């Protein structure tokens, strides 16, 4: 049943999507192509201009010099373009060091004995968590400042993350059947690794390499910028930025060239990495494009209703409720019903019949992934199709959900979540709310009711949690209780106790109740009226007597009853 509530039910509609390069990947590839073109052509075409000294120093942008000139009168536009080659070459070299050494090491650990492998991987984990730039500083300190040492330094600093990726990717493959088979056949481990692990590594490796290229570019240019990388008279983007920065007060345009080029190159790598990741990781891809979901709206064609009783008189009144997926598939197809004050109405049907969706929509809680429309939804006197006071609604409509464990917030104590409605909406003091909850716990025979509230959900059993949820639902003297399979998680004796409490609440509060269940025996015992749902529609409505006498007409209801009898044979004779 819960599958209907999650957007995953829309999954079949997603399969039709074509796998193609997203706009991000395309933009990244175009940018990269342009940069490579500049790197190839600029030194030949603009090399002279970038070198030529002149006495026109520290100019602003002019027609001759679009980005102005530096302190030696050299054209900054030409210099920014010419620097592309050095920057890209060094970045590619450093990235290559990281990738090759990382992959080789990551595969090699699988040729080592288990103990050494664990040691290496632990050390690698520490290295991954260590700032790359500091690691690069160590290498730069050893090798001395310079383009070569900076490249090696940044390359080495990038190795641990590739070791981690490769070792992690290889781990599950090394235990797979075909690898075991190959090993049994006497194929040496290095060949197993090369034949079976490398091909599987492709996608994730490409994504990490693209991201690593962006990081390497930043770090390498950063080393040049702080003076440990490319040295004068050579220059890359980082060097150009460092040369320009002291002059920004005189000529702010000095930093434009290297900044723009650095951002373009970094963005190209980021776009390619993100684009590739989005292709391989469905979680990154957005869901079905379509209508906005998770909302309850008035039906567009305001159907003329039969003049029936005033909805304010009923606990719940629903007319022509329709729930559709974002892609337009109808899950609830025009359901109408009323629940009177003090009446318990059962809603039965198999999984996927739309009963939970109907109940949640009737409470104004349409799940994401689907959208609901209705001619009317009036719950506890509040018109949910118009603006409603949230506090009044929370007080008047109580909800009990089917899976007690996932329904509780694992990070909060019971009382902090269960007393939230009285505290937030009714202004009840924390201590007073806690006492009321303990009292309600006691009535539902929850052991040690006074200290339960301070526990976290994982410390309680599912049945205990469900009783706690029901206890909280009865705290605010609601006018409408919507309970979605509230007793499924409970054993039979507790179930009887809970059902008695529901009946008592109905009698004392005069509350109406919508009771969802697939268990006809429970429904028969509890409900004044029963709606049978199938395929998103109410196929039959039965009074308590009709159900007791098995006066059903719809074949689906008959089969439901037959299933119940099969499980719980009764002495009753039937037509």
């Amino acid at each position, binding site marked *: 049943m819960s599958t209907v509530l999650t957007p995953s039910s829309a999954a079949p509609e997603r399969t039709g999507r074509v796998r193609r390069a997203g706009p991000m990947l395309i933009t990244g590839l175009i940018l990269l192509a342009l940069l490579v073109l500049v790197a190839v052509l600029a030194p030949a075409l603009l090399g002279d201009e970038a070198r030529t000294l002149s006495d026109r120093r520290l100019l602003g942008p002019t027609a001759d010099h679009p980005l102005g000139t530096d302190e030696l009168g050299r054209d900054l536009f030409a210099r920014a373009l010419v620097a592309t080659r050095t920057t890209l070459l060094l970045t590619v070299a450093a990235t290559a060091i990281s990738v090759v050494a990382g992959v080789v090491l990551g595969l090699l650990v699988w040729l080592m004995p288990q103990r050494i492998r664990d040691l290496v991987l632990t050390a*690698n984990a520490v290295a991954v968590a260590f700032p790359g730039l500091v690691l690069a500083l160590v290498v730069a300190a050893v090798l001395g400042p310079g383009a070569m040492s900076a490249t090696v330094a940044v390359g080495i600093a990038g190795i641990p993350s590739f070791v981690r990726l490769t070792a992690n990717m290889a781990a599950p493959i090394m235990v797979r059947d075909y690898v075991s088979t190959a090993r049994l056949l006497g194929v040496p481990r290095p060949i197993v690794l090369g034949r079976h692990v490398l091909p599987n590594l492709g996608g994730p490796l490409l994504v990490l390499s693209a991201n690593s290229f962006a990081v390497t570019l930043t770090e390498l240019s950063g080393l040049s910028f702080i003076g440990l990388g490319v040295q004068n008279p050579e220059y890359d983007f980082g060097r150009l930025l460092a040369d320009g920065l002291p002059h920004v007060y005189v000529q702010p345009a000095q930093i434009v060239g290297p900044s723009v080029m650095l951002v373009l190159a970094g963005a190209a790598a980021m776009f390619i990495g993100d684009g590739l990741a989005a292709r391989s990781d469905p979680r990154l891809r957005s869901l079905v494009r379509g209508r906005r979901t998770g909302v309850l709206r008035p039906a567009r064609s305001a159907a003329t209703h039969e003049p029936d009783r005033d909805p304010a008189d009923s606990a719940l009144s629903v007319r022509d409720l329709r729930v559709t997926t974002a892609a337009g598939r109808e899950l609830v197809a025009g359901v109408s019903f009323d629940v009177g004050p003090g009446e318990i109405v059962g809603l039965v049907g198999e999984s996927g019949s739309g009963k939970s969706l109907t109940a949640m929509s009737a409470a104004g809680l349409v799940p994401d992934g689907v959208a609901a429309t209705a001619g009317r939804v009036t719950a506890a006197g509040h018109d949910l199709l118009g603006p409603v006071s949230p506090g009044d609604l929370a007080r008047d409509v109580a909800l009990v959900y089917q899976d007690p464990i996932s329904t509780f917030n694992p990070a909060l104590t019971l009382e902090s979540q269960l007393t939230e409605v009285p505290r937030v909406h009714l202004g009840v003091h924390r201590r007073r709310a806690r006492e009321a909850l303990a009292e309600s716990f006691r009535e539902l025979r929850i052991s040690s009711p006074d200290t339960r509230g301070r526990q976290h959900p994982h410390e309680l059993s599912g049945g205990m949690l469900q009783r706690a949820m029901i206890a909280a639902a009865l705290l605010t003297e609601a006018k409408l209780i919507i309970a979605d399979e509230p007793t499924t998680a409970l054993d039979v004796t507790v179930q009887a106790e809970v059902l008695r409490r529901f009946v008592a609440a109905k009698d004392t509060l005069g509350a109406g109740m919508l009771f969802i269940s697939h268990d006809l025996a429970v429904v028969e015992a509890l409900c004044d009226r029963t709606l049978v749902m199938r395929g998103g529609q109410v196929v039959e409505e039965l009074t308590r007597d009709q159900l007791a006498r098995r006066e059903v007409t719809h074949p689906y209801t008959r089969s439901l009853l037959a299933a119940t009898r099969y499980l719980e044979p009764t002495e009753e004779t039937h037509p």
Partner: protein
Amino acid sequence: MRARPWPVFLARKAREFVLAVAALVVLTFAIVHLIPGDPARVIAGVDASSEQVDAVRTQLGLDLPLGTQFLDHVSGLLRGDLGESYRTGQPVTDVIATRLPFTLSIALVGIAVTLVVSLALGLAVAGLTRGNRNPWLDSAFGWVTAIVLALPVYVVGAILIVLFAVTWRVLPAGGASSAAAYILPTLAIASGPIASMSRLVRREAAVVLEQDFMRTARGRRLGRVREYARHAVPNLLASTLTLSGLILAGMIGGAIVVETVFAWPGLGRAVVESIIERDYALTRGIILVIGVAAVTLNIVIDIVLAAVDPRTLRAGRALV
């Protein structure tokens, strides 16, 4: 709580800390010895006479057996003695003591800003794009964060200087002389981490918001702000912190680079100068301190994580 997991957990963290620091000590000790060729020659300079080279060798103790050198190094560390700067003769501990607060302050402020902003931003974007809402925001967020991630710290710093210090003249371009001077360096080092961490938070939040307990919270009609802050954030903190260690440790690197942009009198500037001048005692000392800071940061994250989410007390953060 059945057993007492905290003492066990803290003991494990303490062991990790000691091991990592030991590795750092060995690594920083090795810097001089890994220099290709004769370290004394490299330090003294190409044009130094062989007497000068020998003098350097003796002064740095490079003529002693390796084991003795290492023991001297470690016993010095234990006494709080990191040696003297080869160039200025100043004790390395003094240099670190005067400069560390400046680096630490921008790094810590940057981390705080990053955590707060990316949690709020990531959660807001996750909420606004939930269930196909605002598809434009979904792609805009992807593009903008990708571009911000492509902006290196020093480029952001340079742009901020041009805008706020040169063009509008509202904030100082450098120096650590006033509280206002912290604004631009902090923004510069936090921008990239904010982009990557808000992406992380957004992905995690999308998962959390789909959970049943969020539907329960929604049923209490608390309003979006309370619903998210009270019910989503605590569940988000654990997964976010688990993955954010790398990002936050990376900010230490950002702090080093940003000091050059803003003429910041911190450790980053000092370590760069020491490397250029081949002042190895200073390089060693500063890298050791920065490394210990990074290790400490990681362990503090683990401890905060355990406090937020007691389940990780037993399992621990998956680093591999």
